[in-house]
């Protein structure tokens, strides 16, 4: 008995699934735009979107128009793109590192981002020139490069890469703790922790222009490597014997996932579980071969994140829950189910 629902190569079934997924994503984005801290009637939302997209001239309060288009729509798009990036990174890392528990932060990216952020926030790194996001991005990249350097020196096998990632994460987490304990008072430390949990509240359209192209780029690069990703399943030697340029593929794909993850983390903080759980859910639906898995993962990640954002805004009235808490609320039980299923078939 096969392990996936849609794993047969019936192309029209996959086409139908793709259309359904896109529709669901569009619907979720529509919901995200209609729901928020203040309630705006659906008709108004529709008119506002139509005014901007189609150039109609409905009479609307300019504040409502701004809220719907500049605040909510940009936020929904960034949420979708962040979810897609994280899920895609998770899938690629799970294949490259041959580890079903791999996820985007395994190479130290999130730890480096938090060090960069607290460096800017508490030590005044690049004061006046560097924003919090830029500091986080730079920290993320430095951490990744350090881990890559270590891993290359240690032999570059999947296990070694993971170990170097763990070491790198620990190092940068320690650096973050050091900075926080020596430079911050309790209030600042609280602020830092809040940032680490993830927040979409400051998103505007310029962020969309950064987030979406990075996701698209990452997706295209990964699609180019679907055969290679499949070939890694039995390890680097097996992949090489099938004609894959192992080192080059590792560098390109790890670099791409690092770029996608660093962009997301620096923009919205460290949101967990998406990169870990969505690839498994996608595998469950369409099977493990990457030409189907990657598109399913990207769509699944986008839908999940937009949904999590909506929930984070409505679950407690008058308050916005950090989105990392919502993804954990749903991600942790899903993860337990994954482990349980894996146990049964092992």
């Amino acid at each position, binding site marked *: 008995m096969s392990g996936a629902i849609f794993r047969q190569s019936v192309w029209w079934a996959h086409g139908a699934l793709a259309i359904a997924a896109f529709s669901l994503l569009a619907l979720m984005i529509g919901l995200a735009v209609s729901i928020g801290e203040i309630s705006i009637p659906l008709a108004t939302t529709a008119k506002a979107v139509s005014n901007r997209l189609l150039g109609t001239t409905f009479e609307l309060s300019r504040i409502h128009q701004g809220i719907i288009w500049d605040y909510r729509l940009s936020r929904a798009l960034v949420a979708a793109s962040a979810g897609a990036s994280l899920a895609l990174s998770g899938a690629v890392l799970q294949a490259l590192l*041959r580890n079903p528990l791999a996820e985007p932060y395994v190479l130290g990216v999130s730890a480096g981002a938090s060090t960069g952020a607290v460096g800017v926030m508490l030590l005044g790194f690049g004061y006046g020139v560097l924003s919090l996001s830029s500091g986080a991005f730079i920290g993320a990249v430095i951490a990744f490069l350090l881990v890559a350097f270590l891993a290359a020196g240690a032999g570059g096998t999947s296990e070694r890469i993971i170990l170097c990632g763990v070491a790198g994460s620990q190092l940068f987490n320690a650096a973050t703790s050091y900075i926080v304990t020596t430079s911050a008072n309790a209030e600042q430390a609280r602020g830092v922790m809040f940032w680490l949990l993830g927040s979409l509240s400051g998103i505007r359209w310029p962020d969309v222009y950064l987030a979406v192209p990075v996701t698209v780029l990452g997706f295209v690069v990964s699609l180019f490597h679907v055969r290679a990703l499949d070939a890694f399943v039995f390890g680097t030697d097996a992949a090489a014997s099938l004609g894959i340029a192992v080192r080059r593929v590792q560098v390109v794909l790890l670099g791409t996932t690092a770029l996608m993850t660093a962009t997301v983390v620096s923009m919205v903080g460290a949101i967990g579980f998406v990169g870990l759980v969505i690839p498994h859910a996608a595998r469950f639906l369409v099977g493990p071969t990457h030409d189907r898995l990657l598109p399913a993962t990207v769509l699944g990640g986008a839908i999940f994140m937009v949904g999590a954002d909506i929930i984070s805004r409505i679950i407690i009235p008058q308050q916005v829950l950090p989105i990392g808490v919502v993804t954990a609320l749903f991600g942790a039980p899903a993860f337990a189910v994954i482990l349980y299923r894996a146990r049964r078939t092992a």
Partner: protein
Amino acid sequence: MSISLDNVSFTAGNSLIVNGVSLTVQTGTVLGLLGPNGSGKSSLLRLICRLRKVRSGIVRLGESDVSTMARSDLARRVAFVEQQATTETQLTAKDVVRLGRTPHRSLLSPLGAKDDAAVDEALSRVGMEGRARQLWQTLSGGERQRVHIARALAQSPTELLLDEPTNHLDIQHQLEILGLISRLGVTCIIALHDLNLAAMFCDQLAVLQRGKIVATGTPQHVLTRDLIGDVFGVQAHVETSSIHGRCNIQYIIA
């Protein structure tokens, strides 16, 4: 000749694993590679398909130097079966064999008729065609090994390298697989532990000891009492079998 090695050496860290090995394998023949653990058999196989880089010497496939060949060309010619390759991904046996078609597929092409034919043929040659849809995780050790061999066969190779392919198989399948390999008509190098099986199925043998070739030739020529005692450290009596006409080694336990 199909495969030739010219004074090939390989180091890992500070130790010399393969030391000046020169070897030729005629097209279409089966060469058995023998030697105790640590003699360099696995490394030698990996050098031939360029999974590792030689420190000195040249490996040739036909007329071409392996180190100058394009990776994809190399993969279309040479297939390699490892000792042990596992995965946790939920693949079916057919998925695994399909991977063997990777060097022949371009990025955008779906699986064509030629690919499907190669996959089906490979599966039936190893006797797993009925289990094509079964999950990898549910196969026994021997069945997994057969699927790996099928994957190598699906690569449509002209040279086939196998690293102890019969380790996990029961005797029936050991004989079946080795018989299959010997009848393939493809140039093969098999690393083996079992001297009798090597004698039965290989056209030529090469014996490695501490990275150096100490004997090459037909099984008759190579498997002598003295060599076996010297290289493998066991007492044996060698005679020609009246059943299959090949060497038969009987071990003497003190």
